[in-house]
């Protein structure tokens, strides 16, 4: 909503309001609907002696003639205004949002600037409405200069808006903006409740005690501050960096560094007792030695002329260590106490404790020590040896900068998307400059049709962009481009071209870099990203033809040719290439050029983002296809340069793979559906080459082999996958879909994981291509100790903290577009995930949380839920839940004699085995409860960082707050989602009971083999649970049986050797509750050996 002129005027001083009126007049004259910052600039420049003009002339680049540069400025302002759409004439075109924002910014800025406070106060008194700070013209202009459109316009004419700001803020001499000499008065009315207080409030600020001492770190100053006190004057530093701080303090005292010690303590000496004490305490030194040292201290003190001595006792830990005898410590402490009492005037003590626990231990032992030693605790929380490194920073950043955003530093170049056009002050000779001007004006006329810039779109948060570059380079960010940058980009490109021509043709020309501000002392930077549309490219190409330089300069890197697939090879220029190409595709090549002043321009080029999104919805809609072409490639001396290795790498890479156009050149370019289609079409060969996924039988066979159970489910899955990936069933528009959506119902979560992993391996070559996310825990392993959850699937872990699931999936999909996305517990999906999934299943594009879409044309989505299972049998002994709780514990054999128990002596092994199963079947409640408790206990002791919040809440002392319930929402969504999946597959539960029976038989058999029939065996349920879990997870059918043969038998033998094959012995197999397996037997999640006790 634009703001009425009247409202805006209220925020301005008279002078600034006049400037605004002029701007409004400009807008009216041009029949523009709104008054923007550009109008304001135009109006401000129109006056022959305006502040802005004045500032410009001082900030002017010395490389150009002043007249010329101002003309260029006017021209570029004019052109930019021309490009604004006209509308029917309005009497007072309202103030645009961007201009209003500038006014608001200047208000905030002014409020912070002390010199404006007088004004501020006055206004506050006059008109009680505090919100309104009248903006002075200077601040008004400063804010307008922050407007990216404006700074671009200035940049086009070779002005740096930073320079202009500087010269605005620092007028040459006695201009009307000079700073007032006297410091401003703060009249903030602090009255409430304390009026009656007779004493003056407040302190001098900043505090004079320290501010005069620029040297030394803050910690040392604080220590010195304590030393000067009259009581509690012996500092004890506590904190992780306490020892460093102590060392730094001693250092500065020893070196007599200025500023650390106050005047009255000058000449203070430090005597280190640390070594002597340590030696005494750990027994290497004698008491005599220590006494000697103490005596020496006493003597020095007697004769000492200076302020005194500080005893450094070093780390307190040496006094509280467990190995140290209490006696010795007591003696040391007593001696120190005595010494301190005796010489209290001239003796100080200083110590450090690296942790509060050390101190509290010490305090426990000597409760009176704080008083005896007159200690003053000093928490040390940071350690900075000196502040020099910092003090340079602020000066560089410059306090004159009210709003950041134009610090030029190399970091900028890593952000290819910031469309910052920092002034390009490339030197050109006069001749070239004129030619440039000619072309530029021609181009401007041609480009007048482009629409107005929307300033927001180009101000993408580069911080985010940067983060993305690290993680998910692949998102198609090219979409964010802005038509309006086109002309600007062209101009920059043109300018660069002429700069280069000039440099090459007129080599003798020296290269003085007109850098006015300190800010840009080293670098002249260009970071631009050029886009233009085809029409413009055409017109430009013709204009370049005329100029006659085309042949010389327009040699295009061949790789670009290769990247755009339909083009023939050869040395045609990219323009021709684009023209000739059948323009179904949108080709956008964006190149970020990086210049450094000290090396010849363009010698260092990087291609951070080469993207070739080829999106061709349907041939019928080709009419309105635009071709985005990087200007950087149009004018491409890059290819002559030896250093552009990346570019060449790409080209090599591309050329080395005939047939697979534009495959692996960069992860960043993966958003091309074309590419994916290409890959997937030959993926049978590409990815491992084992299988043709179209072949149902081979898929079925491979899956069955890898999973080893769930035959019916596998058959159905193979069928569905084959059907869907044939691509002849589903259609989205004219295009067949190849994405597959499966939903696994029922039990056997391990089986589900196995199937998903197998699918990834078979179809895409490796298990790496499985993107595994458990939506229930979302970023955490539900029970870190659980055997089953230990499986290190390629998951969503702590590294992705702060990222939503959706973004995680999107990132992974960008990296590996052909993969299996495995979403466990789909019923726990959050709203964002739900909407993303819904859209993905509907459209074939997966949107991330920024609504950027990633094509999933070659992805298999597998979701699972355990609800609504048909197979829930009652009365099973080993339920899946129970096995899930099994932990990865060490197994132990306990041998007990049962001699006293006469009633049991006759029981033979078989019976006991039955008894064992009896225990299991009759009392399943008890052990599971026990396990639950164990779980809780383990939670307490092992605080896992990824533990979901619920886990913590169960602990005492935590209070949870109400959360929104989204369950009803989810139900409806799930139903709808299930409707759309390609196939719902029900998995049968794993038959733990029969497996348990078989395993028990096997154990009994081995047991009797080794121990004979007289011994009794008891297998605890936890151990059985562990075995079953291992069997469940194992890829091999007989893995656990093999383990019993190898590991368990060996242990039985060991036990027999130890205790003899005596009868009436009870052998117990138990799990050690708190001892986790350190070494696993190969190929199975069971311990490599059993402990025999």
């Amino acid at each position, binding site marked *: 909503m634009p703001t009425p002129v009247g409202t805006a005027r209220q925020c301005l001083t008279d002078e600034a309001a006049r400037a605004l009126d002029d701007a409004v007049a400009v807008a009216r004259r041009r029949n523009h609907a709104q008054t923007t910052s550009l109008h304001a600039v135009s109006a401000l420049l129109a006056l022959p002696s305006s502040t802005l003009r004045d500032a410009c002339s001082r900030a002017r680049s010395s490389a150009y003639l002043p007249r010329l540069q101002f003309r260029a400025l006017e021209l570029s302002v004019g052109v930019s205004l021309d490009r604004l759409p006209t509308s029917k004439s309005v009497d007072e075109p309202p103030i645009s949002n961007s201009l209003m924002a500038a006014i608001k910014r200047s208000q905030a800025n002014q409020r912070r600037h002390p010199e404006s406070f007088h004004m501020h106060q006055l206004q506050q008194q006059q008109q009680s409405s505090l919100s309104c700070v009248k903006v002075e013209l200077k601040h008004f202009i400063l804010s307008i200069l922050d407007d990216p459109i404006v700074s671009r316009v200035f940049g086009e004419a070779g002005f740096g808006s930073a320079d202009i700001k500087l010269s605005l803020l620092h007028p040459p001499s006695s201009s009307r903006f000079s700073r007032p000499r006297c410091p401003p008065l703060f009249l903030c009315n602090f009255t409430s409740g304390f009026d009656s207080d007779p004493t003056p409030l407040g302190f001098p600020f900043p505090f004079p005690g320290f501010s005069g001492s620029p040297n030394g770190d803050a*910690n040392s100053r604080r220590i010195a501050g304590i030393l000067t006190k009259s009581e509690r004057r012996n500092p004890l530093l*506590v904190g992780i960096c306490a020892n460093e701080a102590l060392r730094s303090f001693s250092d500065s005292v020893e070196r007599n560094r200025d500023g650390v010690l106050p005047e009255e303590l000058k000449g203070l000496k430090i005597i280190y007792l640390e070594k002597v004490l340590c030696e005494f305490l750990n027994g290497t030194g004698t008491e005599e030695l220590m006494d000697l040292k103490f005596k020496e201290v006493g003597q020095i003190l007697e004769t000492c002329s200076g302020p005194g001595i500080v005893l450094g006792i070093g780390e307190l830990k040496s006094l509280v260590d467990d190995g140290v005898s209490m006696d010795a410590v007591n003696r040391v402490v007593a001696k120190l106490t005595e010494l301190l009492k005796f010489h209290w005037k001239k003796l100080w003590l200083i110590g450090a404790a690296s942790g509060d626990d050390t101190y509290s231990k010490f305090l426990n032992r000597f409760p009176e020590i704080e008083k005896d030693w007159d200690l003053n605790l000093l928490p040390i929380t940071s350690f900075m040896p000196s502040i020099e490194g910092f003090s340079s920073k*602020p000066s560089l950043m410059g306090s004159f900068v009210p709003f*950041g955003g134009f610090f030029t530093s190399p970091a900028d170049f890593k952000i290819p998307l910031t469309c910052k056009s920092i002034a390009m002050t490339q030197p050109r000779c006069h001749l070239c400059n004129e030619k440039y001007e000619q072309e530029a004006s021609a181009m401007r006329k041609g480009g007048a049709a482009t629409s107005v810039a929307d300033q927001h779109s180009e101000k993408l948060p580069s911080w985010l962009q940067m983060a993305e570059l690290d993680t998910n380079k692949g998102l198609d960010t090219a979409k964010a481009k802005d038509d309006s940058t086109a002309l600007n980009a062209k101009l920059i490109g043109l300018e660069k071209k002429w700069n280069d021509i000039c440099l090459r043709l007129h080599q003798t020309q020296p290269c003085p870099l007109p850098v006015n501000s300190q800010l840009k002392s080293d670098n002249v930077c260009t970071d631009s990203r050029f886009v233009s549309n085809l029409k413009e490219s055409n017109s430009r190409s013709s204009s370049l033809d005329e100029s006659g330089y085309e042949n010389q300069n327009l040699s295009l890197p061949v790789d670009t040719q290769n990247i755009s697939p339909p083009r023939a090879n050869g040395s045609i220029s990219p323009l021709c290439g684009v023209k000739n190409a059948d323009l179904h595709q949108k080709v956008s090549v964006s190149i970020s050029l990086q210049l450094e002043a000290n090396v010849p321009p363009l010698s260092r080029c990087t291609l951070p983002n080469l993207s070739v999104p080829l999106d061709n919805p349907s041939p019928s809609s080709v009419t309105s296809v635009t071709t985005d072409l990087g200007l950087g490639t149009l004018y491409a001396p890059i290819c002559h340069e030896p250093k552009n290795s990346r570019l060449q790498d790409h080209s090599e890479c591309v050329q080395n793979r005939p047939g697979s156009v534009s495959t692996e050149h960069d992860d960043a370019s993966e958003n091309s559906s074309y590419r994916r289609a290409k890959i997937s079409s030959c993926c049978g060969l590409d990815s491992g080459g084992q299988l043709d996924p179209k072949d149902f039988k081979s898929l079925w066979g491979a899956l069955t082999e890898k999973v080893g159970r769930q035959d019916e489910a596998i058959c159905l899955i193979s069928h569905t996958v084959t059907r869907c990936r044939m691509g002849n069933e589903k259609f989205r528009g004219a295009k067949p879909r190849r994405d597959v959506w499966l939903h696994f119902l029922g039990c056997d979560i391990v089986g589900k994981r196995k199937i998903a992993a197998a699918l990834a391996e078979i179809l895409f070559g490796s298990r790496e291509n499985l993107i595994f996310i458990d939506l229930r825990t979302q970023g955490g392993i539900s029970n870190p100790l659980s055997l089953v959850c230990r499986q290190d699937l390629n998951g969503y872990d702590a590294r992705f903290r702060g990222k939503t699931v959706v973004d995680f999936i999107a990132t992974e999909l960008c990296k590996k577009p052909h993969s299996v996305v495995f979403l466990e517990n789909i019923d726990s999906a959050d709203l964002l995930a739900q909407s993303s999934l819904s859209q993905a299943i509907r459209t074939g594009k997966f949107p991330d949380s920024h609504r950027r879409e990633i094509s999933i044309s070659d992805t298999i989505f597998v979701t699972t839920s355990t609800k609504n299972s048909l197979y829930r049998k009652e009365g099973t002994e080993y339920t899946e839940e129970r096995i899930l709780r099994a932990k990865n514990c060490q197994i132990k054999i306990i041998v007990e004699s049962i001699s006293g128990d006469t009633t049991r002596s006759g029981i033979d092994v078989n019976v006991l085995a039955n008894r064992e199963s009896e225990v299991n079947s009759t009392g399943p409640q008890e052990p599971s409860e026990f396990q639950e408790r164990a779980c809780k206990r383990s939670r307490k002791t092992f605080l896992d960082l990824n533990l979901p919040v619920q886990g913590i809440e169960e602990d005492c002392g935590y209070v949870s707050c109400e959360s929104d319930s989204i369950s009803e929402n989810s139900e409806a969504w799930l139903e709808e989602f299930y409707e759309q999946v390609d196939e719902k597959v029900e998995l049968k539960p794993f038959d733990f009971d029969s497996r348990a029976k078989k395993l028990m038989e096997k154990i009994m058999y081995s047991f009797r083999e080794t121990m004979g029939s007289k011994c009794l065996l008891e297998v605890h349920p936890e151990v059985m649970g562990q075995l079953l879990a291992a069997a469940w997870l194992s890829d091999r059918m007989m893995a656990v049986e093999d383990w019993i043969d190898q590991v368990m038998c060996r242990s039985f033998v060991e036990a027999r050797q130890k205790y003899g094959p005596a009868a009436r012995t009870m052998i117990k197999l138990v799990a050690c509750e708190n001892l986790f397996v350190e070494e696993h037997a190969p190929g199975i999640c069971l311990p490599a050996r059993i402990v025999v006790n």
Partner: protein
Amino acid sequence: MGINLLEALNVRVVGSGEKILVLAHGFGTDQSAWQRILPFFLPHYRIILYDLVCAGSVNPDYFDFRRYTSLDAYVDDLLNILDALRVDRCYYVGHSVSAMIGILASIRRPDLFIKLILLGASPRFLNDKNYHGGFEQGEIEKVFSAMEANYEAWVNGFAPLSVGADVPAAVQEFSRTLFNMRPDITLFVSRTVFNSDLRGVLGLVRIPCCIIQSAQDVSVPVSVAAYLKNHLGGRNTVEILHTEGHLPHLSAPNLLARVLQRALSR
């Protein structure tokens, strides 16, 4: 310069209650951040509000780069304010960096505080061997260079991330206050904060603390709340807010106010 500290740091005392409550804002905000929390407490407390010296609402000239190299200087400011106002006992609610300041202040002057309420507090932001603070040194450096490179862009990116929850008003508000800070000060303060390590001194706190933590917070992992609970020396409780973001007083004021009320009444 002889400028009154209370004026320089925009100290305000509002409310009509007996008990004194200090609301200390965190990094990137100023006292206006409490605006939506205030109404809940105005009738029952005398509330002291102030701006940290690094806040955008304080004259940047007062920020002495030599003085504010560690949190101790901020603690000095806080204690001086309380002394100047002749506060002898108070409740203290500190957010983010102010929580750290509160911890340090209560170590120095345990008698001054009845209870600390630590909102989104972290004793240490960097990861360590046995400690998960949420940040790696490398990440931090990246953030710093982003900050240096283009402050505005950084603010625009950081604000929504930090607010977490989808509350545009909160994002806007946080962006505003963050943007009001002078970039070099922001950078300097963040370096100070990331340089600080309170883990060795937590046990020295003797007064009860209540740790309030959002369930999802880009700056502070939930585990840190547990760490604080286990290591702070007093009687501690943890309240997990079922909301997202580092700034619940902006994004979920009602929820937070309820929890605060509960924490203060216990």
